[in-house]
């Protein structure tokens, strides 16, 4: 599977309810790899209502910068949440179907 299939995909719960759009893939740096650096392991999907500005890296709290831009983008991300990848049932045609109800 490719990361691009997950990103910007719609996330729907078991009963088909739309949770939002995947705007980020939260990883831990502990994936197995024969090479010198550990591979990123995608642990959770960042699911947000809208898709704007996600790429500008404004979800992270440590992002400083022009308050005008920060405030604007943070407002868009009010409802972003983390969904554990373990809950993913299947991924097809731009939609991520979850196998269970996220918390």
């Amino acid at each position, binding site marked *: *599977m*490719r*990361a*691009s299939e*997950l*990103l910007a995909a719609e996330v729907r719960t078991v009963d088909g309810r739309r949770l939002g759009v995947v*705007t*980020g*893939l*939260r*990883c*831990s*740096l502990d*994936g*197995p*790899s*024969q*090479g*010198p*650096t550990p*591979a*990123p*392991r*995608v*642990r*959770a999907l*960042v699911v947000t209502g809208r898709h704007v500005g*996600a*790429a500008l*890296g404004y*979800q*992270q709290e440590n992002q400083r910068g022009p308050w005008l831009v920060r405030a604007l983008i943070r407002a868009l991300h009010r409802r972003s949440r*983390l969904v*554990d*990848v*373990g809950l993913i049932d299947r991924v097809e045609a731009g939609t991520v179907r979850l196998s269970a109800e996220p*918390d």
Partner: protein
Amino acid sequence: MTDESFDDMTDESFDLRLRLLDRQVVDPDGAMICKVDDVELAPADGGGYVVTALLAGPLALGPRLPGRLGRWTVALARRWSDDPEPSPRRIPFERVTELGSAVVLDRSRDQLGIAGLEDWVRTHVIDRIPGSRHASE
């Protein structure tokens, strides 16, 4: 998976989109190889999906481009490539030595054998022009 919040699980919140996708890939002495046009993921024992390879080239970037432009890029790249089952250029993640502001690999582009267009343009155009071999004074 226990359900405590993920932030403490991930030593620093490494987001694949922000810290890997579309990053510049360079060889050990800084020469530019390609961009991380996409990333190959595979389910891993112990949960989650692990990055197994970096993908580059129009066949990797195409699907991420909007609508007709994306399809057109993929179609063109398919016709361009000579092997029957064309797939994106694949760099196994083992080659990566550092995930900094650029992704550093342990070998050069030629050793990876992934450059198509660059070689074609070099042999058919640039090498035909005098002075292409030595640095400008």
